[in-house]
């Protein structure tokens, strides 16, 4: 339990990972550090998005209020949605991909460490790019799905939408780069014996998510390219006078948008599938079915997008097909819910904070799933779509699902990341405030929606029967603010002052718990040979995994990797002492990312009628991009 990171990097030329200081973070290519950066940045954006939500709720607390102007409100909900989806939940998931996937599969790093750093920097700079305008009240204001033609230059002349188009384009680059990286990592970097069907469920769900990213982002990239060209170069894709069809945008967006919601939820499902077995002291129930249902969800997710368009008038046949396809997704998702309950069933359940959040996800996501199925019934959805009933649905799945799962994951993996536990007492407070506040905020929205309240309205008239529901929602949000502050305090305090955590903080069964907390920069001094799904339980509690399939000793014959049987490591050596090659720290990915952002940013000046300046900046950015990319590709990795 002694902190292991204290040993200075003696003699190692570039053993940067145990250093501290700003530079060691800026130039890092270590997946754990990048994961930590993702975590902090995304948590910051979560607070920011939450603050926007709080303003929204304050404005709606009473009818006919004028706390914020209509224009600013429209920026608030657009940026709230955009921030939460692209800057908070996706990167929070990415934090776990980065930190955990290599540890869970027994790898020393991801496949492309520098590409990984690049993804982070693009995310950070893109996040800043899209967020800063709100301080000047010129933030994007077209809603998080930016329907054309409202977002075309004809109806949104200012720069608001420009920030959105370019910001999302930039963030898309980050997600795509990361996805190629993790696909490769998971396929190729697994330790000997770590077959696909032995991978921890989090890694599995993340694996599926990477494919969703790779396939879902191109359509939105193209949709955004069209919009960007329309706004900057006078193309006609969404120009109504040219006969453009606004449904083109809607289809391209939702071909992305629906898989996107599974991108948001599957990592949380994965985290829960790690937490529940650990605190039930039982392996995950029905592992194979869990994998297949995840694949099914991802696959079906590409065939249901038009359920966001039931009021659009696609025709009866299309509506019927998409309604039924959507309903199908309830089946694999239900399987997951029941398998989780079955995992708890018969276990020895301890209610630690992570466990509370995991159980919370099961309870709350179900509610959101059921209202999802209610949406899928197209005629019924014509009474629900674009009302607060939808807002209720998606916050149950997003807050009750993704955020609950991610918080569970943070409590669960905090000891691994920082070598200390978070406070259980504050954690319990956080959970209950969150649970109660969440339901108080979002449950009444079912009612206000069905009682006729449209979404995206900055104000509403008195006497419509919505007042008490809105007031309840706002009070609930106040509880959420308190809950979140409790979390922030707990998080910050525990990093230095929490109880020290051993390797195996919770008695879990997967590889990441076999190495020190926090892990040394090389992760595994010796790559373990995996013989079953819960290698660490094999080691410590063989009775728990006795019934699981194990492979014979033949996996041990792999020698190239200097592999050894699974064991607990106590790393007190540096990479150099162990002779493990580590990638050089480098800022080239950072500059490449910067080049991209400058390149896009330059275009903005075109709308200020400064064409020459715009071109200069854009070309400057492009030069920086190409130059740093070249330097990056031609310099050795390690």
């Amino acid at each position, binding site marked *: 339990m002694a902190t292991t990171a204290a040993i200075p990097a003696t003699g190692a030329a570039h053993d940067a990972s145990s250093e501290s200081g700003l530079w060691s973070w800026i130039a890092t290519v270590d997946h754990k550090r990048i994961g930590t950066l993702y975590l902090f940045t995304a948590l910051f954006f979560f607070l920011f998005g939450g603050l926007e939500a709080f303003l929204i709720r304050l404005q709606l607390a009473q009818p006919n209020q004028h706390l914020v102007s209509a*224009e600013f409100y429209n920026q608030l909900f657009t940026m709230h949605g955009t921030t939460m989806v692209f800057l908070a939940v996706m990167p929070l998931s990415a934090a776990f991909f980065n930190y955990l996937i290599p540890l869970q599969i027994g790898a020393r790093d991801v496949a492309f460490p520098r590409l990984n750093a690049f993804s982070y920097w693009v995310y950070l700079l893109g996040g800043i790019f899209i967020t800063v305008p709100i301080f000047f009240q010129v933030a994007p204001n077209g809603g998080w799905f930016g329907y054309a033609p409202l977002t075309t230059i004809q109806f949104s002349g200012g720069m608001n939408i420009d920030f959105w188009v370019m910001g999302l384009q930039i963030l898309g680059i980050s997600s795509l780069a990361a996805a190629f990286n993790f696909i490769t990592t998971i396929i190729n970097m697994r330790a000997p014996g770590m077959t696909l069907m032995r991978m921890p469920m989090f890694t599995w769900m993340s694996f599926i998510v990477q494919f969703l990213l790779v396939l879902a982002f191109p359509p939105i990239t193209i949709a955004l390219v069209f919009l960007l060209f329309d706004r900057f170069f006078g193309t006609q894709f969404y120009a109504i006078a040219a006969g453009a069809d606004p449904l083109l945008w809607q289809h391209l967006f939702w071909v992305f948008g629906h898989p996107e919601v599974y991108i948001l939820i599957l990592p949380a499902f994965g985290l829960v599938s790690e937490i529940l077995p650990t605190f039930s002291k039982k392996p995950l129930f029905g592992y194979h079915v869990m994998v297949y249902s995840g694949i099914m969800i991802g696959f079906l997710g590409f065939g249901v997008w038009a359920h966001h368009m039931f009021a659009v008038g696609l025709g009866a046949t299309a509506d019927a097909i998409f*309604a039924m396809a959507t309903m199908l997704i309830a*089946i694999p998702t239900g399987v997951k819910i029941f398998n989780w309950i079955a995992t708890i069933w018969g276990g020895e359940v301890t209610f630690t904070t992570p466990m509370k959040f995991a*159980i919370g996800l099961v309870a709350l996501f179900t509610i959101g799933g059921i209202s999802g199925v209610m949406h899928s019934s197209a005629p019924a959805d014509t009474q629900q779509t*674009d009302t607060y009933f939808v807002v209720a649905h998606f916050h149950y799945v997003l807050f009750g699902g993704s955020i609950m799962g991610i918080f569970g994951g943070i409590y669960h993996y905090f000891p691994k990341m920082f070598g200390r536990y978070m406070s259980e007492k504050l954690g319990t407070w956080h959970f209950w405030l969150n649970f109660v506040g969440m339901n108080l905020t979002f449950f009444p929205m079912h009612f206000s929606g069905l009682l006729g309240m449209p979404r995206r309205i900055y104000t509403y008239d008195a006497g419509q029967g919505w007042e008490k529901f809105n007031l309840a929602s706002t009070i609930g949000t106040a509880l959420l603010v308190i809950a979140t502050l409790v979390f922030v305090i707990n998080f910050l305090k525990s990093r230095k002052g929490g109880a020290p955590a051993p390797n195996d903080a919770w008695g879990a069964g997967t590889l990441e718990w076999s190495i020190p907390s926090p892990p040394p920069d090389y992760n595994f001094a010796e790559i373990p040979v995996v013989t079953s799904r819960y290698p660490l339980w094999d080691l410590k509690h063989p009775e728990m995994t006795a019934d699981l399939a194990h492979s014979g000793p033949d996996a041990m014959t792999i020698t190239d990797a200097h592999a050894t049987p699974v064991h607990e490591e106590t790393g007190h050596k540096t990479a150099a002492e162990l002779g493990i090659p580590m990638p050089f720290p480098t800022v080239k990915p950072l500059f490449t990312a910067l080049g991209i952002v400058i390149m896009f940013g330059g275009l903005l000046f075109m709308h200020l009628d400064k064409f020459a300046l715009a071109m200069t900046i854009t070309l400057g950015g492009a030069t920086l991009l190409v130059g740093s990319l070249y330097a990056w590709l031609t310099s050795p990795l390690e």
Partner: protein
Amino acid sequence: MSFFRLRRFAPALIVAAAALTLAACGDQYPNSTFTHFTDNNRIIGALWDRLVFFGTIVFVFVEALLIFTIIKFRKRPGGAPARQIHGNAALEITWTVIPALILVMIAVPTVRAIYKTQAKAPDGSLKVEVIGHQWWWEFRYPELGVVTANELYLPAGRTVNFQLNTRDVLHSFWTPQLGGKRDLITNRTNWLWYTPDSSLAGQVFNGFCVEYCGSSHANMRFRVYTVTADQFASWAKHQAADAAGSPAAAATASVPVAAASVAAKPAAPVVAAANVTAAPAAVEDPGYVFPADKMPAHTVPATPLPSGDRAIAFDESVLAQGSATAGRELITNMANLGKAPCLTCHVVKGEMAMVNNDNARGPNLTHFGSRHTLGGGLFKSDAPTLARWIKNAPHMKPGSIMPTLGAGEFNPVTKQKMASGLDDRQIADIVAYLMSLK
């Protein structure tokens, strides 16, 4: 799936739903979606009952099971150690198949309802063209020659078939108590129909724009009056007529307020008289108008006027002196004020036309005085409100395309102070005129 008599089980089982249904009837919840006032909503209501029925079963089952499990298997001192079960094919098949069956029971009526609600509207239904504008509604009855805005009259008992189009961005047309919504899509035409029950005559319903359409999306509302067939006919006949006091209308009959003065100043071209005989301007019959005092409170706009330091100063005492005649002059000719006159954007039927109906950017004002609301259903239509609206509409309604016209006012859209413009006296004249357009 009719073997399931849902109605029998549902109320007992579903507390939440029952509360909601109750709520839907009381006028506490005037925009409830699950009323049974139209064929369309009855179909959706039946579907909804079924969704709630199964939804509740799944909800109760999952949550009860979850709570039971975590309580029963919580770790206790001396408790049993975890039982190591890793899976069970039979169980897993069960909880794949049962949800699938439930879904079939939802899917079948869903598909049926889709084809029912999206069938072609029955013959003989009343056609209404709904045209979305940022941020107001235009309603046209092509068969009746009526063009109006933000207030929709429907004869109870007759199917109404809405043809939905938009002149700018996307909007969505929704009257929660009467039917589901349908989007208005640029360069496309959509359809929606329903039949308000004949027992509905004499009621008012709220309608909303439910597709985000820019700054004042929240302020794009409308009213629906369901009236008897006779009342509807009377209303329509009058609405189709030319504006009171217009040269055309004046040629056939005397109009209470403005007639005398108009006659004294025959500014209109003579040809107008020819049209009049063709259009039966039944000015004798003032036409049915839904009585303002019968409007339930929740349908009367309660949006307060900007107040405090945001208030639009207007000397209300001049309103009494407003001259409709002078006002009529002003709406066609404000060039001396350096302003485009009202009729560059609005149509007042029978008055000198500067725009035709199709290009009009603003609501048709021909019978403005017979409307109870103003500015996309946002405000009550009375003289003090109207005066301020004309003075500075964008200040009252964010982003409004109706420009600021009052002298010295600050236009929040262009961010400019109006050097020239209408003074309060002139506004009072225009108000008098508009209010006379019953």
